[in-house]
């Protein structure tokens, strides 16, 4: 954020407005974290381990939970019974859901979460038209009461920031609110709707205060209507709300630190009667130091410094010196130049907890996602390579078996057809050496000549040879038959799938292993 643009402002509310402008610039650059409003973002939030704590804190502030921290406990009446934290949480959620008009199932879904956002937080638009309906009266009164407490218009019941929504509390708080709005020249300030309009729209309230800031320069408690309004308390709450809205972690609007201690005022200043502003300011700064974690104090005080510089100019001459001394003492302790190590620690902390964390966290998540994707891709490539290798081995095996099959088939085919077209069959080339000769015409008529001098063994040998040859011929005819069928199929496949048909053919040939044709061919082949 460019802080140089903020420094020349006149009032500290102007500072806030200028901060707002600067933040808007940053917001456009998506630097500032947007609270989850979509279901997908909400699901991510739901998985956060602190989600239940956040919900419980809100329910407690709205008066639906009876203790600030979610812990299991023993119930005293009517009989001692152990109630788990889970059960307490569920009951508190159910009570809220019942008042907020959502299904009381004890489960914080997007609908319940959005209701909490609208009624509890300042960053979310509150649809008053909805909540002003009679059935939501109870929850709306609690939400109004909570805001009045936070803004300093209503007393904290029992010193706790916990809304009760009682009529008495609301009446008093709204009267103070109306009084302040009246000082800010708001029309019909006393109207209930006007008060709601401002306390549920912090931007509108801030702008109104900034615009009419001169009317609040008395810095004393306003005593109008229902009671005194702590203007300084209201302004510091407003400042804290704005800072909180702009992402300064650790700032809890309405939170009160320990009892005021002038730790930063020099002892010599004690006899000086402090103006309300000095008290409020010191109180605020002290609270600020309590609220804000030490690691981020330096960063936060940078903004506080800007506010203090401007505030001092608004004081009267009487207390200016005091404020100057306070500021000097405060700043000398708080705004010390950071060492390199401190700078690194702050940077680490901001990366860890600030809104910058979301950016870095986003980058980390993106890196992890990228790494995951890369790993997945590499795994896929590895798997693909492995499968490719397996495929290559399978293809090699198929091709080897197929070609072997084809080679054998072709030999059987050629030999078979050689015998098929060969009319004279004999064992030896010289006719007179043969015991048996066979002649076959084209129409399969056969003449068999058996030499009278042939022995039975010689004739059996011929018969055995003849049988083998016949197996080859039969196999050749079967293969020819199969080839014709495959040729027809190949033409059909090529018309449909092109060259891929050859692969299909190879696979079909491979699949032929174990078929009757293959067995016959094998039988024919082993006759050689």
């Amino acid at each position, binding site marked *: 954020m460019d802080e140089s643009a903020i420094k020349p402002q006149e009032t500290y509310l102007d500072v806030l407005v200028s901060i707002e402008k600067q933040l808007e610039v940053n917001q456009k650059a998506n630097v500032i974290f947007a609270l989850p409003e979509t279901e997908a973002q909400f699901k991510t939030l739901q998985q956060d381990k602190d989600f239940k704590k956040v919900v419980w804190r809100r329910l407690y502030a709205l008066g639906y939970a009876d203790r600030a921290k979610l812990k299991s406990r023993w119930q005293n009446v009517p009989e001692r019974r152990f109630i788990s934290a889970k059960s307490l949480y569920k009951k508190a959620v159910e009570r809220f859901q019942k008042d907020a008009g959502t299904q009381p199932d004890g489960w914080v879904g997007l609908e319940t979460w959005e209701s909490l956002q609208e009624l509890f937080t300042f960053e979310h638009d509150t649809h008053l038209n909805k909540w002003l309906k009679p059935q939501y009266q109870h929850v709306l009164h609690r939400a109004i009461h909570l805001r009045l407490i936070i803004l300093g218009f209503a007393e904290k019941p029992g010193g706790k920031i916990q809304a009760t929504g009682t009529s008495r509390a609301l009446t008093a708080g709204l009267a103070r609110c109306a009084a302040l709005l009246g000082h800010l020249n708001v029309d019909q300030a006393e109207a209930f709707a006007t008060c709601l309009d401002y306390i549920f729209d912090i931007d509108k309230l801030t702008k109104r205060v900034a615009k009419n800031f001169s009317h609040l320069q008395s810095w004393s408690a306003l005593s109008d209507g229902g009671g005194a309004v702590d203007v300084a308390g209201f302004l510091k709450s407003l400042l804290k709300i704005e800072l909180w809205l702009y992402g300064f972690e650790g700032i809890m609007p309405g939170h009160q630190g320990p009892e005021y201690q002038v730790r930063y005022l020099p002892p010599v200043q004690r006899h000086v009667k402090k103006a309300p502003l000095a008290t409020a300011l010191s109180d605020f700064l002290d609270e600020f130091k309590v609220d804000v974690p030490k690691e981020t104090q330096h960063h936060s005080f940078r903004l506080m410094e800007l506010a203090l510089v401007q505030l001092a100019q608004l004081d009267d001459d009487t207390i200016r010196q005091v404020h100057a001394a306070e500021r000097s003492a405060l700043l000398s302790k708080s705004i010390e130049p950071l060492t390199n190590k401190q700078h690194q620690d702050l940077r680490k902390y901001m990366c860890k907890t600030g809104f910058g964390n979301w950016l870095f966290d986003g980058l980390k998540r993106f890196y992890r996602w990228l790494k995951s994707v890369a790993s997945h891709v590499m795994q896929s490539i590895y798997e693909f390579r492995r499968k490719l290798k397996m495929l290559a081995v399978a293809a090699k095996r198929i091709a080897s078996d197929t070609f072997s099959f084809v080679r054998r088939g072709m030999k059987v085919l050629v030999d078979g057809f050689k015998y098929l077209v060969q009319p004279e069959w004999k064992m030896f080339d010289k006719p007179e050496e043969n015991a*048996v000769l066979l002649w076959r015409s084209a129409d399969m008529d056969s003449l068999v000549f058996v030499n009278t001098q042939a022995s039975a063994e010689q004739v*059996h040998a011929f018969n055995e040879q003849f049988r083998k040859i016949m197996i080859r011929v039969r196999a050749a005819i079967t293969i020819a038959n199969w080839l014709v069928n495959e040729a027809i199929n190949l033409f059909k496949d090529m018309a449909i799938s092109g060259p891929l048909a050859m692969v299909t053919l190879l696979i079909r040939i491979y699949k032929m292993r174990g078929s009757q044709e293959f067995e016959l061919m094998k039988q024919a082949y082993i006759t050689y």
Partner: protein
Amino acid sequence: MADQSGLSAMAETLKTAVGDLASLEVMTYTGSISAVVKDGKFQWDKLLPDGDTTADIHLLLATKIDIDGDATHFVASGEIPQFMLDTHAEAVRNGSEYRTQIINFLVGKVSGIIG
């Protein structure tokens, strides 16, 4: 189309050839081989009915099988060695099986392709 006519003619030729396959004749002769070998070649025509009958050749066994399964057998008088009978039977069996396959292949597939 001309090609179609050519193919049809070839189919007719095949069917005619197959017609000769309608019957199977196997004849087994015996005799001195020197009587039917001339110039290093076996004179098969001397075994045919219209061949040179002066040669010392005897028809021992003859079988004619029609396509409808009817069979006619000729067996010469006298004792016929078993191996002679086996040889003739083998020739008949293979010829019959051969003929069936050829008929199936030629008539079935080739005619089917031509349409």
